C-alpha cells in the first residue's frame, strides 16, 4: 500500500513540477501532444470569443463541444494553481478508476478459470494468480507513463476525455448500465470515436445480468443498454444546442473530425496523406480512412464475443491509431491498460520490437520536427516516416496482444504440447 502511495506522490510531483517549469508552455504547443481537437490554447480562444458575444466556432480555431466550453468557463473562475490541480487530480482519478476496472477484469478472468471445466490440468500454471496486484501496475503505468505526464502537463482536454473513458470502462465491466451509458455518451459526444465502445458495453452488461438471473432475455438487455447510451447522448445534443443557440456546433465538431479539415501534423496517419492527395479524391479517401477506424469493430466483436475486456482494449488501441486527430494522451491511455494483460506477457513475441519502436519514435519525432520546421534541412517525409513507424508499432502491439490471447486460450484447452501427429506445430493468427 505504501508503494502505491509513493507512486501517487511521484506522479503528482512529476506533473506539478513540470507545470511550474517552462515545459508547460512547450508541451502545450507540441504537435504530438496538442491537436486541434484537444489544445487548451484553442479552448481559451473559444472562451474569449464567447466572452465577446461571438460564436466560439467563428475563426476556425475552436473545434470542441459546447460542454468543454462550459467546463473551461468553470475552470476560468479558478486561480491558475487551481486549474493545474484540477488537471492533475483528474489524471490521478483516471488512474484509480482504470486500476479498479482492471482489477474487475482480472477477477472476471479469475472466476472464469475457476469455473471452466474445459481447461486441461497442466494449464493450472498459466492461470492468473490471486495475489498479483494488477491495479498497482495500472496506476504506475498511468501516473508515471511519460506520455500521460506530457499529456497532462500539456493541459489537453484529452485528460478529461480519458477520465470519461475510464469511468465508462469501469462501469461497463461492473455492469452499471446507466453510469456506463452516461459516461459513454459523454465520451462519444466529446470525441465521437468512443461510440464503438457500445459493443463491449452491451456485451458486458448482458453478461453481468446473466450472472444474476440466468434466463435473462438478451434483446431486452441490449435495448436497455443502447437506450441508456442514446438518451443521454441526444440530451447532450439538445443541451449543447441551447448553449450555443444553433446546430452549428455539429458541423464544427463532428464535421471537423470526420472531414479532417485541419491538416496540421500529428502522430496520426491522416495529415500527410491528405496534404499529398489530389483534392478531387478527398471524399473517397476520407470515407476510406474513417471507415478504417470503425470497420474492425464488427468482426472483432464477433470473434471475441466472450471477451469484452479484450474488445475494450482492442477498440481503444484502434481508436488511438486510426482517429483523425490522435495525440499521445490516447496512446498513454491504452498503454496504461496494458497491465490488464499481464498474464499474456509470456506469450507476446514482439514486446522487444514494439518497445524499441516506441522508444525510437518518441525520440525521433521531435528531432525530425526540429529538422523540418526549424533548420529546414529535412522535410515532411521525414516526420511522416516517424509517425507511420509509430502507427506500425502500435498495430504490432495490438496484434501481439490478440495473438497471445488466442495462444493462451489454446494452451489452456489443449495443454502445452505442440505436436500434431508427432510433428512440431505452430499457431497462427487467422
Amino acid at each position: 500500500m505504501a508503494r502505491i502511495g509513493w507512486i501517487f506522490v511521484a506522479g503528482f510531483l512529476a506533473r506539478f513540477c513540470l507545470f511550474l517549469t517552462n515545459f508547460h508552455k512547450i508541451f502545450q504547443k507540441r504537435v504530438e501532444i496538442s491537436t486541434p481537437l484537444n489544445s487548451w490554447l484553442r479552448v481559451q480562444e473559444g472562451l474569449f470569443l464567447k466572452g465577446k458575444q461571438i460564436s466560439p466556432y467563428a475563426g476556425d480555431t475552436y473545434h470542441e463541444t459546447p460542454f468543454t466550453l462550459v467546463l473551461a468557463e468553470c475552470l476560468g473562475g479558478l486561480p491558475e494553481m487551481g486549474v493545474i490541480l484540477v488537471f492533475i487530480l483528474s489524471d490521478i482519478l483516471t488512474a484509480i478508476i482504470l486500476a479498479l476496472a482492471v482489477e474487475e477484469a482480472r477477477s472476471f478472468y479469475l472466476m472464469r478459470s475457476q469455473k471452466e471445466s474445459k481447461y486441461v490440468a497442466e494449464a493450472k500454471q498459466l492461470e492468473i494468480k490471486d495475489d498479483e496486484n494488477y491495479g498497482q501496475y495500472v496506476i504506475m503505468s498511468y501516473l508515471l507513463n511519460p506520455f500521460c505526464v506530457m499529456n497532462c502537463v500539456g493541459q489537453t482536454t484529452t485528460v478529461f476525455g480519458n477520465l470519461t473513458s475510464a469511468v465508462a470502462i469501469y462501469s461497463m465491466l461492473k455492469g452499471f448500465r446507466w453510469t456506463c451509458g452516461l459516461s459513454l455518451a459523454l465520451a462519444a459526444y466529446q470525441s465521437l470515436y468512443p461510440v464503438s465502445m457500445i459493443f463491449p458495453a452491451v456485451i458486458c452488461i448482458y453478461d453481468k445480468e446473466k450472472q444474476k438471473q440466468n434466463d435473462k432475455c438478451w434483446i431486452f438487455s441490449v435495448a436497455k443498454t443502447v437506450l441508456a447510451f442514446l438518451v443521454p447522448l441526444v440530451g447532450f445534443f439538445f443541451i449543447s444546442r441551447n448553449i450555443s443557440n444553433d446546430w452549428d456546433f455539429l458541423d464544427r465538431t463532428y464535421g471537423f473530425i470526420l472531414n479532417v479539415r485541419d491538416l496540421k501534423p500529428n502522430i496520426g496517419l491522416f495529415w500527410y496523406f491528405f496534404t499529398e492527395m489530389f483534392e478531387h479524391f478527398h471524399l473517397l479517401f476520407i470515407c476510406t480512412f474513417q471507415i478504417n477506424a470503425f470497420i474492425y469493430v464488427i468482426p472483432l466483436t464477433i470473434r471475441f464475443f466472450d471477451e469484452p475486456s479484450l474488445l475494450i482494449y482492442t477498440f481503444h488501441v484502434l481508436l488511438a491509431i486510426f482517429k483523425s486527430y490522435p495525440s499521445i494522451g490516447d496512446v498513454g491511455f491504452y498503454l496504461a491498460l496494458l497491465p490488464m494483460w499481464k498474464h499474456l506477457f509470456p506469450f507476446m513475441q514482439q514486446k522487444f520490437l514494439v518497445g524499441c519502436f516506441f522508444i525510437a519514435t518518441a525520440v525521433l519525432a521531435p528531432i525530425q520536427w526540429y529538422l523540418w520546421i526549424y533548420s529546414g534541412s529535412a522535410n515532411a517525409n521525414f516526420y511522416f516516416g516517424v509517425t507511420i513507424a509509430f502507427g506500425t508499432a502500435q498495430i504490432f502491439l495490438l496484434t501481439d496482444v490478440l495473438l497471445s490471447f488466442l495462444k493462451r486460450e489454446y494452451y489452456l484447452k489443449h495443454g502445452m504440447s505442440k505436436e500434431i501427429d508427432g510433428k512440431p506445430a505452430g499457431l497462427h493468427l487467422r
Partner: protein
Amino acid sequence: MRASTEEGEYNDKMGILTNPNTDDTNRLVKLLQGKGGAFGLVCYLAGIVWLIFLANADYNLGTYFSENALLPGLVVENFDGAYYAEEFTKELFQLDTDYNGKIPPHEFEAFFHRLGLVETELQNYTITDLISKRKEDEGTGTNVFAVLRAKRAAGTESIVFNAPYFPKNKQISRRNLAGIGIMFALADYFRHQVYWAKDIVFLISEAHLGSLAWVKGHQEIMEDWSSSVFRFDNVHTKAGNIQASVNFIMEATDVCSLQSKFHGINGQLPNLDLVNLLNKFIVLDHEKRPDWPEADVKKLFSFMQMQSTGTPSGSHGFFLKYGIESVTLVGKTSKNCKARNPVSYSDIGRILEATFRSLNNLLERLHQSFFFYLKTTPNRFISIGLYFPPIALILFPIALKAATIWLSKQGLNTTRGLFTLMGLHAHAIFLRWVLNNLNWILLPFLTTAIPGAEIRTNVFASICGGLLLTILSFSIFLHWNVEKEIREAIYCFCLLELATGLYCLALFNPSLVVFIGVVVSPLVTFLFFWDMPEKQRYWAKALLLSIFVGVAYDWLGLDGLIYFVNKYYYESEVYGNFLFELGWIGGGVLILGVFIGGLI
C-alpha cells in the same frame, strides 16, 4: 516481471513458452548467444571499413547541381574593380592606423554613402558574458550594413554579403580589412548593374557574433533566455526574405588559395548546391591542380573532425541556424605567399560576382539538393544514403547485444531495472546541476581569492572540484550490490537507450556518432564478458570506470563544461556544443549503466 522466483518449474516452462510456437525463434536465440558477439564484431569492423572505402572516389558520388535555376558558369563575369579593391583596402589600413586599431562604424557607413549606397544602418549588440572562449568576441560591437535594392523585381527576396570585421585581432592583417575592401569594390560594381532581381545586403558584422546579432535583429528573433546575456537592436532597414548569404574573409592582404567553409552549429550543413556553387567557381578558376587525390581518407577525417565538434567554422553557422543557407569564402595565406603569386583581387571578385549572379537567378529557396552529406574533395560527396548504412553497422553490435540479452535471459526484472535506470539518470542530472552551480558559487570566490588569475584557470579549478565529486559519487555505484535479474535488465535498457540515442544523434551529426560509436560500441558490447574472480573484477571495473570518466571529461575539454557554466542555451547557440555534450555525457551515463549491468 515475468515470474516470481520461488517457482523454478514455472520459470523453466515459461522459458519455453516465451516462444511457444516457433522453434525458429529458439534457434535464433541460440544462434545469437553463440555467434552474436562475433557477428557484432564483424558488423562493427565492416562498418568502419565501409566508411573508409566511401572516401574513395569509386564509392562516393560526384557533385552535381540539383537546382537548375542557379545556372552556374553561364554568365561571363565582368568585375573589373580590382584596382578599386586595392585602393579601398589601402584606405582602410590607413583608417585603421588613424583610429588606433578600431575603425568606428560611421566610417564604414561613410564608405557606403560614397559608393552611392544610401540605405545604411548601424546595429549595436552587447554580450554581458562572463566567460567567453574567444576573447575577440567579447564585449560590444556594431554592425554596419547597406541595402542595394533590386532593380528587376519587387525586392521580396534578398541575398546577404557579409564581410566580418575583427577589430580586436592583434594582427592587423587578420582583421579582414582586405575582405571589406573587396566587398566595397564589389558593392560599387554591383550598384551599376541592372540585372539584380534580389536585394543585396552588404554587411560588415563586427566579429562572428555580429552576424548572429544581425540575423536575430533582422528576423526580430527574441528569446527570453538570451536577452540577459546577448542584447541587440532590432534592424529597421529590412531587406527581402533572405535566400542565402555568402560570408567572405581574407586572412591576409595577399592570399594564395581560396577555401569554402560550411560547417554549422551542431553539425548542421548548408544545402549542397550552395557549397557546390562556390566550390565550382573556386576550383574552376583557381585550383588548377591536375590531379585531385581521389581517395582521400584524410580529407574525410578532417571534415568529420570539424563536424563532430559541433562548432561552426565561421559566421555562416549563425545564418544556418535560422534556416538561411550560407557559406564562407576564405582567402588563405601561407608563409611565402607574396613570392608564390597570390590570387589576384579581380579573380576573387569574379568568383564572388559569379556566386551572387547565380544566387540572383534562384526562383525558390535552395531545397533541391542534399542537406546531409559528408565531403571529401570539392567535387565528391557522400550522401546520407551512402554514409548511414556503415554508421548503422558500427552501432549495430549495441542493439544486437540488447536483443540477445532480452531474448535469451529469463526472468529479467524489468520494473526494477527501469526504476534503477531512472534513478541513474536522475543522479546524472543532479550531478550536472551540482557541477553547474558549483562553478557559479566557486567562480566569484576564486576570482577574489586569486586576483589576476585568468578566469579560465578558475573555471578549470572549479570543474576539477566538480569532477572529483562526480567520481566520488560514481564510486558509490561500485560498492553497490544488485541482483542479477535487475542488473541484466539495466544492462539491456542501457544498451537500448544508447543505441537509440546514437542513431538519433546520427541524424544531426553523423561524424560525432562515428567517433563515439567507434569507441563506445566495442566498449559496451565486447569488453564486459570476461570471467573473473570477484576481487579482480572489482579492480578491473574501478580502473575502467576511472579511465572512462577521465577520458570522457578530457575529451569534452573546457568547451562542453563551459557550456554548462554559461547557463544552458546561450553558449550552445554560439558554440554549438549542445549535441557534443549530449553525445558524450549521455553516452557516459549509459556506459555507467552498462558497467553496472555487465560487471558488478
